């Protein structure tokens, strides 16, 4: 058995190394092969985690939340296994453990922080039972892959039943997530934002789950933060947003994000209201596991979301922000984040329709692109496999765009004639290649140039 595990671990490491040299990610392949060689590799390695295992589930915010949680634990001196790249199906999870294992096939880790695709949880949980699950939110996403959101919820529910002792750290502001967590009977810890936000952009957003999951009555909302996230209650059966155990207040979106939780003020240097939830979720999870988190603020100030989540690049004189946007709720939040920057800007939108993106791109019409009709936006360029659909989407809100199917060509065009402030919004399969392109450009063009220091405050 031991030989098999060794072979499994080494092969995974080898595949990953070779793929990296070839400029590919290779994590999924490494995991697939590792499981093929030793189907018990994930079970055995995860059993060696000395303390506890966290999983992060939900439609949006998984990767950032999980990476934040991992960094928070590391800042407390813990050794952590984590699927940093966001490879979150069974092979990706297996790879995270195999790649982290020592050459003798043993794992040296106190904690595991693992994000898991909603539909994959049922396949991962037979290998290990997590101690905690963070449930971020539930939105419509890739309907051709997951089917309706009801199906996603059923799958998650099935997975949760496989780990009856698991504690669930859940977003209180999302009626769907809270319903799922509460009904599951698991012990729950809640986080949320109970104060109404001023200056929330008026949107005609598609909202999921307007009707009470428990009794079918239409939910009443005191306010929305975005999409269906807000303060809700059912006038019929009493289902309602619970008090948040961890509540973020005093939120400011100027120059990044500032908010207070448990009397401590935190600041992060990147944009996006939704990132309040990501930070708060990670904070709540680590606090729930018993950490005092004295180093949390310092960790935040050094945290780079990476992986194309509000990731910054600098090429020559142009500041570039790359951000993943793969479903309506995420894209609407992305647009809000872009608009929080009042400076002149150019935007490139890259839309692919590969299997991992979802073949169905009708969701583009559920995004409120009319909000991009703003003076601060100089140009919009559409790129990627379905750039024509994207151009048409914008045409029907009277926004003109330039069509440049090749991403690199599109970026070069805006580097040449742009205003030096470029946002690149991409969906899933465009992410890795675009990130490579930008990293390469930064490397060749920007040698010797340092990135500007981010302004960050420390914990008060």
């Amino acid at each position, binding site marked *: 058995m031991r030989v098999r595990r060794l072979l499994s671990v080494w092969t995974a490491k080898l595949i990953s190394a070779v793929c990296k040299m070839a400029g590919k990610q290779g994590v999924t392949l490494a995991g697939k092969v590792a499981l093929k060689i030793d189907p018990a590799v994930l079970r055995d390695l995860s059993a060696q985690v000395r303390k506890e295992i966290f999983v992060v589930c939900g439609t949006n915010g998984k990767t950032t939340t999980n990476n934040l949680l991992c960094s928070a634990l590391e800042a407390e001196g813990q050794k952590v296994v984590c699927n940093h790249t966001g490879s979150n199906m069974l092979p990706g999870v297996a790879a995270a453990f195999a790649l982290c294992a020592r050459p003798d096939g043993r794992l040296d880790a106190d904690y595991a922080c693992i994000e898991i695709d909603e539909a994959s949880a049922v396949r991962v949980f037979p290998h290990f039972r997590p101690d905690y699950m963070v449930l971020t939110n539930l939105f*419509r996403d890739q*309907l*051709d892959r997951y*089917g*309706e*959101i*009801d199906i996603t919820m059923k799958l998650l529910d099935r997975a949760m039943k496989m780990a009856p002792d698991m504690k669930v750290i859940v977003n209180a502001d999302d009626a769907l997530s809270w319903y799922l967590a509460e009904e599951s009977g698991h012990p729950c810890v809640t986080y949320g934002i109970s104060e109404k936000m001023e200056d929330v952009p008026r949107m005609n957003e*598609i909202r999921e789950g*307007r*009707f009470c999951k428990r009794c*079918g009555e*239409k939910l009443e909302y005191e306010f929305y933060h975005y999409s269906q996230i807000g303060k809700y209650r059912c006038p019929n059966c009493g289902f309602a947003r619970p008090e948040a155990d961890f509540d973020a207040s005093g939120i400011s979106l100027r120059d990044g994000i500032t908010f207070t939780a448990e009397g401590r003020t935190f600041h992060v240097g990147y944009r996006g209201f939704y990132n309040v939830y990501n930070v708060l979720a990670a904070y709540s999870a680590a606090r729930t596991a018993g950490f005092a988190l004295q180093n949390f603020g310092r960790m935040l100030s050094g945290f780079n979301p990476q992986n194309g989540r509000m990731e910054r690049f600098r090429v020559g004189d142009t500041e570039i922000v790359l951000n993943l946007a793969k479903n309506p709720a995420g894209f609407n939040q992305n647009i809000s984040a872009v608009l929080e920057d009042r400076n002149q800007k150019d935007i490139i939108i890259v839309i692919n329709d590969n299997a991992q993106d979802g*073949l*169905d*791109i*009708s*969701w*583009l*019409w*559920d995004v409120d692109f009319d909000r991009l009709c703003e003076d601060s936006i100089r140009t919009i360029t559409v790129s990627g496999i379905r750039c*024509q*659909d994207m*151009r*048409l*989407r914008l*045409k*029907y*809100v*009277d926004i003109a765009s330039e069509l440049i199917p090749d991403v690199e060509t599109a970026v070069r065009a805006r580097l040449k004639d742009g205003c030096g402030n470029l946002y690149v919004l991409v969906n899933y399969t465009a992410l890795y290649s675009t990130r490579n392109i930008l990293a390469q450009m930064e490397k060749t063009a920007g040698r010797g140039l340092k990135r500007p220091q981010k302004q960050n405050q420390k914990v008060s």
Partner: protein
Amino acid sequence: MKLIIGHLYPDLLNLYGDRGNIQCMRKRCEWRGIEAEVREFQLTDPVDFSELDIVLLGGGSDREQMIVCRKLQEIREDFRAYVEDYGSVLAVCGGYQLLGHYYDTEDGRMEGLSLVDLYTRQGSPRLISNVVIENEGFDGPVVGFENHGGRTYIGENRPFGTVVSGYGNNGEDGKEGVLYKHVVGTYLHGPLLPKNPHVCDYLLANALDRKYGTRDLAPLDDRQEWEANRYAAERFAKS
């Protein structure tokens, strides 16, 4: 001239970018100087069909469709009179299934509106694909995306098109959707209308004809629409 577009129950039936169909009709009216008003109806709102020129019935999840289905029985007679009087209807996906007599699922029978002589049975697996269809009445292919568990049988009715690529009504008889009087029923979303301006204009012309006795629509610059249509038609017709 003015057209009033009624969107039935967008709170419940709003999967797959249905808003895009509304937006497309609205814009293609506006660009021609035709006033377009969109009325959204919630489940508790009364629907006066005599005021409407085009009705959109979209798709929802099975659960939400069931809620709508009960409500629809109350307005069935008014809806039927509207359809028989050549009122324009675009029914997509779940909305299309509701036009028929029933939808048999493993959880039981969902009664339809019986506006069009068709019925649907649940099948497995779900039929998920890009779709290209053809109809001589439309100048150019119709492209879209389908994602449905139901298999629909339209009997002797005219289909919306013949399947070139994809599954269509049931994956068996090569037919997609249904045309009945001024009703278009289809599984195609994507949404349907932006990439198929000829279909959008067909609905608008029918509505204008009924209200004002004219089918005259000023030509628009549809190059971007047709480029997107052609891209999908060429790419997916091969597969």
